[in-house]
């Protein structure tokens, strides 16, 4: 019977475009990245390679640029994640507690979500300008001497972090605000009836009930922070001064798109190692989350 057959096949007709897309642009690349990372002395043009092994991983790990890139990336995550999360929790709580101007203020805080990293990065570059920048001007009003934000190796990492935090806050705040709105107001009423002070309510009720959202935020932000790369172009037109702001994704891009001939094996190995680090960090996070919820 034709119709019976059709009923069986139908789900796969619905899925077909998706399966094709995912297979070509997600599944195959994953397999291929693993394969390429294991191929020794792979030459893209001829397709020759001398055998399988961990040579690429060894080269990458021993490469001082990669080490620097991994160091910078970890440092970036370690600075941006805690600061942005704390700021976002406080701002979201305050935003949630007000009645007047709530929509207006929310719009202001959420607006950078639409940020094109490149375009607004340029605005920040202008603001960070050594001589004509508005940031140094404001600092000078408080007697702080001008800082060469972008042109000195001592301070350009800070500039990157400031920009990173600003860019990541809106989506973090949105997620937290929606998490706060899902908390039943009766808990607050009960706490107020018991005479709890705002700070106590914040630490004893808001934070614990918001914990699932905070962990979600940590996951999402961690993944995006590990991929820091795009920001480097508008701010520094490259990886800082003399590669001092090399990041892992920049390293991957550099190995297969800047270098000629491209070193696919090294790029693949670096990509897998980045995934490995993200994976481990996520596992750690889930572990802590489970511990805390028990």
């Amino acid at each position, binding site marked *: 019977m034709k119709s019976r057959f059709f009923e069986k096949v139908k*789900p796969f007709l*619905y*899925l077909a*475009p*998706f399966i094709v*897309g*995912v297979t070509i*642009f*997600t599944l*195959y690349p*994953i397999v291929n990245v693993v394969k390429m990372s294991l191929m020794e002395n792979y030459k*893209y043009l001829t397709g020759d390679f001398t055998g399988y092994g961990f040579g690429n991983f060894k080269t990458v790990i021993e490469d001082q640029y990669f080490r620097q890139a991994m160091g910078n990336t970890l440092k970036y995550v370690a600075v941006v994640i805690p600061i942005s999360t704390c700021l976002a929790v406080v*701002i979201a709580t*305050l935003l949630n507690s*007000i009645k*007047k*101007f709530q929509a207006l*203020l*929310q*719009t*202001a*805080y*959420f*607006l*950078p*979500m*639409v940020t*094109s*990293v*490149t*375009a*607004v990065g*340029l*605005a920040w570059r*202008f603001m960070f*300008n050594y*001589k*004509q920048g*508005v940031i140094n*001007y404001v600092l000078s009003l408080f007697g702080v001497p001008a800082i060469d934000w972008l042109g000195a190796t001592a301070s350009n990492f800070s500039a990157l972090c400031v920009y990173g935090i*600003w860019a990541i*806050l809106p989506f973090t705040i*949105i*997620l937290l605000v*929606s*998490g706060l709105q899902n908390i039943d107001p009766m808990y607050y009423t009960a706490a107020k009836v018991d005479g709890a002070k705002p700070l106590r309510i914040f630490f004893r009720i808001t934070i614990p009930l918001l914990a699932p*959202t905070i962990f*979600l935020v940590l996951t999402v932000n961690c993944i995006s922070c*590990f*991929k820091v790369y*795009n920001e480097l*172009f*508008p701010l520094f037109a490259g990886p800082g001064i003399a590669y001092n702001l090399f990041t892992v*994704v920049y390293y*991957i*891009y550099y190995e*297969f798109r800047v270098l000629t001939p491209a070193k*696919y094996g090294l790029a693949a190995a670096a*990509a897998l190692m980045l995934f490995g680090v993200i*994976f481990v960090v996520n596992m750690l996070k889930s572990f802590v989350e489970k511990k805390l919820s028990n």
Partner: protein
Amino acid sequence: MKKIKFSTVLLYLVLFFGALIMIFPFYWMITGAFKTGTEIVQMPPTMLPNSFTNLDNFKFAFQTAPFVTYFINSVEMMIACVVLCGVTTILTAFAFSRLRFPGRNLIFSCLLALMMVPFEMLVITNYRTIVGWHLHDTKWALILPFTTSIFYTYILKGFFDSIPESLYQAAKVDGCSDWKYLWRVMVPMSKPSLVTIMLLNAIATWNSFMWPMIATNSKEVRTLPFGLYAFISEGGAKNERMMAAATVVVLPMIIVFLVARKYIVNGVARGGLKG
């Protein structure tokens, strides 16, 4: 009159000050775009440009770089990605949510695991796939890898799952086909969720930088963000001209955001928290 508490005043001060910082870069960018070369290097900086009718910077940007082409390319890429990805997402979410087939849950769990893989890891192979198909430096190269999304499928499936099964049965009893049920009932009911997904997708596509940078070379197919970057690095532009070009890139999305703010906030609230 009710007495206003000091703490409330402080609260609003803090919030307004923070909001100022959040939107200041946009303000500085847009006002900077109207300043003249001498005005912009003034110290102390002026908060407002002398005139908002000074369009020289925009003129310069549009003359030196084909921003109109970039803009059209960006719009094309955005529309193509949002529409194509929207369709595959709807079909896939429906299949996973309502249709029965062997291995349904297993396949879906595997997909969720794939969500953890960063796109940056796939870029190497995708670049070579595109080159292999001789699509490098074409508009197709910008669109094809983004015609499916596991993340958006996951969000939409969550929403589809929340539609009661009895609605499906009621429609089936009336002789409604799956196809018709999907488009007449499921899709209209999921409007808030769908709009959110499409908006997030539109924002992401509009701002995407890495892939267009890798997959394109020539000016004819560049999109705005990469075109903007090329404009600075090739032209060594001055700040006021940079601001004008950046404004062209950012303004459309600011408008989209202001129009659709409610949808984004509510939609993210619903979908985002299931994860």
